Each structure stands twice: as structure tokens, then as C-alpha cells.
């Protein structure tokens, strides 16, 4: 258990600044996800914390102790790599205890920890296999085991689930979180997969081009995104983002000349980016004063959801439809059909078109 603190950490390769000065405080025992698109600097940041990359400025503290110049092995951190990075010439057991052996730990202690870790991961029968003789999921376990036996203060995960198939990934997600809770260490998890971040993390750090866009719980990030990037990056399918003029109007406010239902307080006319998530757009067959005409272009059925993609006078919109209700609408809709949509005003997010920052209502 340890806190990890980054103070003004900056990293550049030559003239390219990968991470502009960054400050980040990670609490003891916390599960933090670093999320962002590729090239956002999230993996670099993890490597910086691990000590595999030197930094150009700033300090890294572990429980208040400056470890900026410490060797990776002196930082009491263990890392699970994306490719697992298992030593191909060593058995599962040898892989797992390699770090302890290098440290010259007591053989009895090594044995005890190995046995415990193998049992915890259900890998006891595979201790004498080489990594080449294991399946992807088993290799992933060995990589975790290698980190566990070290009993580090901090676990670093670099997209450890991205090489697993979808089903295994979902199961491993739960296991990994359970393991974190059981071991009580601090975990820093890098992923480009927002679902992983949302489901596992206590807090999410969303990065874009090395800059922290927002830090918050999954709920905060999803419901109260600080800017347009955060709103667009988190959520699947992506949030609908429409640009137009928002006006108070007489009685009902309007957007791009289209009526909005009650629930949004608009005081002055201004140009905005209006964001509304697919689940906050309701679909109707009948017109009404606060509904917009909607021409269906495509229907995506995913099982528990159906999404209608189509055109409104304000722009393209994706709307979520519950396949089990709304009178079986989802099953009947075909491309080319004309329907009506209503934007649920109280869920609308407004952004400044210039800065991308979120605007308070009105």
C-alpha cells in the first residue's frame, strides 16, 4: 500500500513533448485507470512511473519518498506488460520467482510465495511448463503471478487484457479487480478500452496528447465530462455532438431552430456544441411539437440494445431503442423510414464550440 505522487513530471523524446508537465496524486490502495487514445502518452506515463523511462523534469514520490532517480527494481513496483514479456526459456515457476531470486530472497520464502501465487491463480498444475506451452489466458495469469509473488507496493498494468479474446477479457476483468481488492496494493492500469476503465477503476485519468483531460470516478467522467473530448471519448456508441445556436425562445427553448422539450434553462442566445448520449434520445413514430423529424439510415441490433442511426435537421444522431419495449419498434424499423426523436433536455451537455469546455446550462 502506497501513495504515488507525480509533481510536474515532463517527458519528451528529442523535441517532441510526449507528456507536458503533469501532476497526479494516486491514493493508497486505489485502482486508477489511465485511459486515452493511442498516442495519448498513457503507456509512456506508466513507464515513467515504473522507471523504465527517464523524465526531463519533475519528481515522482512513493509514499512521500522521492524515487525519481531510483532504478526500476528499487521502486517496489511490479509491472504486467501488454505482451506479458515472459521469459520464454524459463518455466512458469522460474518466471514467477525470477525477481525474488535476483534479489537473493530466502529460498523457503520464495517457495512459500510461489505456492501461494500458483494456487491463487489456479496455475499449480502448470508450474513446470514453458510459456510457449500455455494458452493466451494462462500466459496472462503467469504475468500476473510474476507481479504477485513480489508483493509490491504498486502494481502497474500496461494493457494486460488487450491480447485476450472478448469473453476471457470480461472474466479476467472481474478477477483482476478482485485480486486488487484482496492484495490491497495500489494499482495503475493503462488501457485504451473505456469499458475496462469504467468497470475496474476507482478513478479514471483521461489523457489526450499527454495532458490530463479529467480525473474522476467513472460516474463523474460519464455524467459530467469537463470538455468535449472527454464526452466523446467515453461512451459507446459515441455521444451525439451537434453544433448550432441555442435560443431561449418563447416558452420552449430551441436549438438550431428546432424545439427542445422543457428541462434546459436557456437565458441568452449563443452558439454551442450540444451533446446528448444515444440513451437520452427517445424515438417516436408520432410527431409532437418538441420532437424532431428523423430519417433512419441504419439499424444496429446488439442484443440488449438497438441503435438507430439517422438524420435530423440539426445533424446526424444515434438513438438507443430498447428492443424489448417501445412496442417492438426496434424490430420493425428499417433504413429509409421516417420517425421522430426527442432530445431529453435534462441530460443535454453543452460545450463551447471554440474551447471545447463544458458550459453551465444556459
Amino acid at each position, binding site marked *: 500500500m502506497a501513495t504515488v505522487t507525480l509533481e510536474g513530471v515532463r517527458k519528451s523524446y528529442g523535441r517532441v513533448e510526449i507528456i507536458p508537465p503533469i501532476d497526479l496524486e494516486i491514493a493508497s490502495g486505489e485502482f486508477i485507470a489511465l485511459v486515452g487514445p493511442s498516442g495519448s502518452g498513457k503507456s509512456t506515463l506508466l513507464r515513467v512511473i*515504473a522507471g523504465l523511462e527517464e523524465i526531463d523534469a519533475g519528481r515522482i514520490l512513493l509514499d512521500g519518498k522521492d524515487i525519481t532517480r531510483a532504478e*526500476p527494481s528499487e521502486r517496489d513496483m511490479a*509491472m504486467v506488460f501488454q505482451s506479458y*514479456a515472459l*521469459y520464454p526459456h524459463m518455466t512458469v515457476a522460474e518466471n514467477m520467482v525470477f525477481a525474488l531470486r535476483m534479489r537473493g530472497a530466502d529460498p523457503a520464502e520464495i517457495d512459500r510465495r510461489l505456492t501461494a501465487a500458483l494456487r491463487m491463480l489456479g496455475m499449480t498444475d502448470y508450474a513446470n511448463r514453458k510459456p510457449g506451452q500455455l494458452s493466451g489466458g494462462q500466459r496472462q495469469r503467469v504475468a500476473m503471478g510474476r507481479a504477485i509473488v513480489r508483493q509490491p507496493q504498486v502494481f502497474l498494468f500496461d494493457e494486460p487484457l488487450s491480447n485476450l479474446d472478448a469473453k476471457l477479457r470480461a472474466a479476467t476483468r472481474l478477477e483482476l479487480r478482485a485480486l486488487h481488492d484482496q492484495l490491497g496494493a495500489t494499482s495503475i492500469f493503462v488501457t485504451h478500452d473505456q469499458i475496462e476503465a469504467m468497470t475496474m477503476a476507482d478513478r479514471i485519468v483521461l489523457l489526450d496528447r499527454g495532458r490530463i483531460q479529467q480525473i474522476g470516478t467513472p460516474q463523474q467522467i460519464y455524467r459530467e465530462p469537463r470538455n468535449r473530448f472527454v464526452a466523446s471519448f467515453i461512451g459507446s456508441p459515441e455521444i451525439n455532438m451537434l453544433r448550432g445556436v441555442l435560443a431561449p425562445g418563447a416558452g420552449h427553448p430551441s436549438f438550431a431552430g428546432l424545439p427542445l422539450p422543457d428541462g434546459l434553462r436557456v437565458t441568452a442566445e449563443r452558439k454551442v456544441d450540444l451533446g446528448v448520449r444515444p440513451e437520452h434520445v427517445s424515438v417516436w413514430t408520432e410527431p409532437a411539437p418538441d420532437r424532431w423529424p428523423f430519417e433512419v439510415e441504419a439499424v444496429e441490433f446488439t442484443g440488449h440494445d438497438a441503435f438507430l442511426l439517422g438524420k435530423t435537421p440539426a445533424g446526424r444522431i444515434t438513438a438507443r431503442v430498447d428492443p424489448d419495449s417501445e412496442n417492438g419498434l426496434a424490430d420493425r424499423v428499417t433504413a429509409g423510414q421516417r420517425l421522430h426523436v426527442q432530445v431529453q433536455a435534462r441530460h443535454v451537455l453543452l460545450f463551447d464550440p471554440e474551447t471545447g469546455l463544458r458550459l453551465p446550462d444556459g
Partner: protein
Amino acid sequence: MTARRIAGRVAANGVVWGYAALIVLPTLWVLSNAFKYKIDIITGTTISPITWSNFEQLLFSRQSHFLWNLFNSAVVAVISTAIVIVAATMAAFTLGRLRVPGWVRWLILGWALLFQMLPTLTFVGSWYVMWSAVGLHGTYVAVILTHVVHNLPMGLFLMLSFMAALPQELFQAARMDGCSNGQMFWRVAFPLVRGGMIAATALIFIFSWSDFAIALALTSPATMTAPVAISTFAQEYDIRYGEMAAGTLLSIVPALVLILVGQRFIVRGLLAGAVK
């Protein structure tokens, strides 16, 4: 199959078989000469009585020291190859895996490439003068060290490609696990490039074993290697074709054995970096 594809196949097969014929036929001709009487060789008889006299002359006559020459070849090739492989593997690890300033890496590799590109004969004269100046001409030391210098670039490039094929994350994991640079080499890199080392060993050994230019300039009768000895069978008034052929056949054997043993690795060595 279209006519164009058939034509393509015919052309491709023609090139491959033509190339094979270019190598195999002269070899067969030389090898068959080893079992012929001199008169049959000179008259160009294809099918002739078989004789072992060439081998008897070569191995047991008083004028010939061919077994000794083979021994010299072995001493030179084994020792120089061993030095090259050890140096090349360590250098490849250092250049490819450790933090070496870019200019150092380019200087060394650029020099190695330049050296590799220039014909051996360019240097042979200078080497002769240098070794004579320090009184080492005609010794094993001179030939072995010159072979090391000559073959090191090739060994370095081969080992670099094997080293580069190892994933970076493996070494990062080793660093996290507390390995020093030395431990990273011995415990991670070395076990994983062993296959590559075998391939490089086979290739470098063959280069050294079959070298003629350097050995011709730097050996004395006491340290003469097999290729040089074979050339001495061509004298002013008498070219002993039969013994040359027999000597060639005998000197091919070690290389052949090595290739058969290390074939799997050699192909991988030649293709390293080409695929993926």
C-alpha cells in the same frame, strides 16, 4: 492457369534450376576428378575407372602434408570463429539493447559495413606488412586475428538481427525484476539468441575455413591452411588435378557436416530480419 502464369512459372523454375546447375555441376566435376587417373582428367573422359591413388598421394606421400594443413585450417577456423561469436554477441547486445549514444552505434556499424563492402584483397598487402613488422608473419596468431577482424562485421550484423528480434519488453521486465546489464545478458539475452549463435557460428566457421586470400598472404609452410595447400598442387610444369580434387573433397567435408547439422539455424540466420 493463364498462359502468363505458366510462363512465369517456367521462368522462375528456369532461374532456380539454372542457378543450381551453375553450382552443382562444377562441384560434381571436381569431385569426380578425385577418383580419376590423371590421363582421364586431362582427356576429359566422363566415365572412367575409379582409383584411390589421388587420396593415397595426398594423405600418405612424403611431399604432401595435407593432414597437417587440414589441422591448421581447423585451428584457425575454430579459434577465430569462437572469438568472433563471443565478441559479436556481446557487441550486438550492447549496441542493440543498452543505451549507447547514437553516434557511437553509427560509427561502429558504419565502419563495419564499409569494411564488409571492400574486397579482402584491398587489405591483404597491408596486413602482410603489419604482421611482418611485428615479427608475427606466418604464425597462427597473425592468421587467427586477421580472420577475426575480417569476419567480425558479418558476425556483428547477424547477431544484431537476432538481438533485435527479441522483444524490448523482455528486457524491461528484466530491469523491473532487478537485473543488472550483465545479468540481463547472461540470463535473458544469451539463452534466447543461442539458436542465432549456432547459425552465425556455422557461417563464420565456413568463411574462415574456406578463406584463401588472407591465408595465402599470412601463412608459412608450417601454418599453411588447406585451401592454400590445394593451390600449391598447381605448379609451373605440372598441375596435379587429381590431388587438387581429392584435397577439395576432403576440405568440403567439415563444412558440409556443419551445414547439415546447423542447416535449420543457418536458414533462419540468413533470413533474420528479412521476415516480419
